[in-house]
């Protein structure tokens, strides 16, 4: 069997095709109250949302850039096209999606995945959702999966959205949350009624095609008491030389004894600034399970947060970050224990290669009233060469002495003995290294549905190929 040796950029060939966007559809670059009004007009926002956008813009103008993490100087906000409207309205029949957009998603395997193993699919192309479909039996169970704009105009959900939208992540949170509040467009709204357990996952796929564009999708998920949902999010963009921005926002509400599993495989192109905010609040006895694979982007700031507000609530975060050449990925997780007997577990792996920088941050807060709570944090880093970097920044703020807290960090390199051992059984050096790295990432691939675990292993294999020899 012959091994392909490829350079890093060609490895992305699956994701790197693109279609020219029509200039007429791009709103002027830069972010001004006029642009915001135009977006709001175009979308037919209710009055409260128009006010919300303008207010967020004021906060954005006043807020400084984040004082931590990797530099974002390469990002010129005046050049980011905030809103791109594709020449398509939302469709529920795949045949009605315009040809080039359809082809994009078909190459990414989206409708195929839907046919095979998903309960529903949403596909967002640039700023708007272009396709949405939910299996009939799922819809009949009362589960709602639609785009946020439609839901906002649906009398059944309008009030629910007004009372939940950016309540977990307010625009005052940080500069890019404020930006998101002003220009957000597209994204998903999911509502799972009490007691409904959706055994097959729902999936959304975000694709940023236009040059220099910003994607600001908003995902709002409400899982009522005793319900179960697995939501999968995939992201990609082709490569351009102009920096792109992704500042999405995810807000998750998990009811009593309910479980929400939120899986992400992110493979943005390597000039993207991925400044994403994700947050979940969990009621009594509920569970949030994050599974997160970060492979793409030039710079990432990503720290999904779980707020455990009810007694016995549980949060689990399983993540992997792979930083290759030119990538500076600042990722991690935050947990807030706000109630007694809550528990959390963070298990992350990070890999850095060819000069990539990977920083893991964790923040665990245990409030005074959260007696009898438990938390364990484990992070392991693997550096594949001597020019790459890996840092760990764990922060703990424990306000009660009746809590059980553990932390473990390991940093290492691939051992030559392990490579030789595998090679002595007939595996060439690249395959041996790739197998060791895939094994290292096993905590995440075990948690993913099979086809995503396979995609992740392919990504690792592609990243590893061409690294040696």
């Amino acid at each position: 069997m012959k091994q392909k040796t490829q350079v890093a950029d060609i490895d992305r060939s699956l994701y790197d095709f693109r279609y020219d966007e029509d200039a007429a559809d791009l709103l002027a670059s830069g972010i001004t109250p006029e642009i915001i009004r135009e977006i709001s007009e175009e979308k037919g926002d209710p009055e409260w949302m128009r006010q919300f956008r303008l207010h967020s813009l004021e906060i954005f103008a006043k807020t400084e850039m984040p004082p931590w993490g990797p530099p974002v100087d390469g990002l010129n906000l005046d050049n980011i096209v905030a809103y791109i409207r594709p020449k398509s309205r939302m469709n529920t029949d795949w045949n009605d999606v315009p040809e080039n957009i359809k082809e994009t998603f078909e190459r990414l395997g989206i409708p195929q995945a839907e046919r095979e193993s998903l309960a529903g699919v949403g596909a967002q192309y640039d700023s708007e959702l272009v396709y949405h479909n939910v299996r009939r039996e799922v819809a009949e169970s009362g589960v709602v999966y639609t785009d946020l704009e439609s839901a906002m105009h649906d009398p059944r959900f309008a009030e629910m959205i007004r009372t939940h939208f950016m309540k977990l992540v307010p625009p005052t949170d940080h500069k890019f949350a404020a930006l998101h509040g002003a220009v957000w467009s597209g994204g998903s709204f999911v509502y799972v009624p009490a007691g409904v357990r959706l055994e097959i996952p729902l999936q959304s796929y975000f694709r940023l095609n236009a040059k220099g564009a910003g994607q600001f999708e908003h995902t709002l998920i409400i899982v009522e008491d005793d319900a179960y949902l697995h939501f999968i999010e995939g992201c990609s963009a082709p490569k351009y030389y102009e920096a792109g921005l992704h500042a999405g926002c995810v807000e998750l509400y998990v009811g009593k004894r309910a479980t929400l599993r939120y899986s992400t495989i992110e493979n943005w192109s390597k000039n993207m600034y991925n400044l994403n905010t994700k947050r979940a609040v969990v009621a009594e006895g509920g569970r949030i399970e994050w599974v997160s694979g970060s492979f793409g982007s030039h710079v990432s700031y990503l720290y999904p947060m779980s707020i455990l507000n009810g007694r016995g609530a549980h949060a689990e975060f399983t993540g992997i970050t792979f930083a290759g050449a030119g990538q500076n990925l600042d990722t991690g997780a935050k947990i807030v224990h706000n109630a007694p007997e809550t528990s959390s577990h963070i298990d992350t792996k990070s890999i850095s290669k060819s000069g990539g920088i990977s920083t893991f941050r964790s923040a665990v807060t245990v409030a005074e009233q959260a007696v009898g709570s438990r938390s364990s944090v484990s992070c392991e880093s693997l550096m594949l060469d001597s020019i790459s970097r890996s840092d760990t920044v764990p922060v703990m703020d424990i306000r009660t002495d009746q809590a059980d807290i553990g932390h473990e960090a390991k940093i290492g390199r691939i051992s030559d003995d392990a490579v030789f051992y595998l090679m002595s059984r007939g595996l060439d050096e690249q395959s041996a290294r790739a197998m060791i790295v895939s094994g290292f990432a096993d905590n995440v691939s075990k948690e993913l549905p099979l086809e995503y675990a396979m995609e992740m292993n392919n990504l690792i294999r592609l990243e590893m190929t061409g690294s040696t020899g």
Partner: protein
Amino acid sequence: MELLRIDRLTAGIEEKELLHGVSMTVGSGETHVLMGPNGAGKSTIGLTVMGSPEYQVTGGRILFEGEDITEESADRRAKRGIFLSFQNPVEIPGLSLSDFLRNALEQISGQRMKLWDFKKQLRAAMDVLQMDAAYADRDLNVGFSGGEKKKAEILQLLMLKPKLAILDETDSGLDVDAVRTVSAGIAAYREQCGGSLLIITHNTKILESLTVDRTHIIADGRITAEGGAELIDEINRSGFEKYTERAI
């Protein structure tokens, strides 16, 4: 027919030479034993023949089936049919024993293997070694006891079916029952593929069920004596002392 020829081999780690011109030949289907005191260079021979990058060959050659493999990488040697059972097998977290074996088999044979056929073979080989089927799904060597690691090495031997198997102290640290099981595995390998064996050992228990064709004694990086199976009995009686002296 000659399978392996080590010809005036000098090798070592960094500046330190450990083998000072070692020569020996192993024929097809033969069973050889390599004995010697601690630190004599037994493991170095095994690792150098397998192609460990830790050891540098500074002189001489290694020939396999008449071809010079001195400069070849370990994976190419494995594909030619050389196998080394490690004294301390490495643990690989996240890689299951069965996934690893299936990959290795496919790489060595150059063709895809049906899952069903693979599982059947694996099951049969594990039965020979009295290994619990659950081990197939466990991470390679992770948390295995010393005995389980050695069994897993012999399992790989049975699955990969090499032409030459070098067993580096496969019997050390095993209790009597485990030695018996491992010996059964080695006997099965001989029976199923008729491959050659180069057994590095301190202990003669493992040799009981085998017919030894030739014995090599190594001391201080030199072969100091060669003979038939009778040499093993002599070593057992009087130790290595006189062979160490001869080396000086």
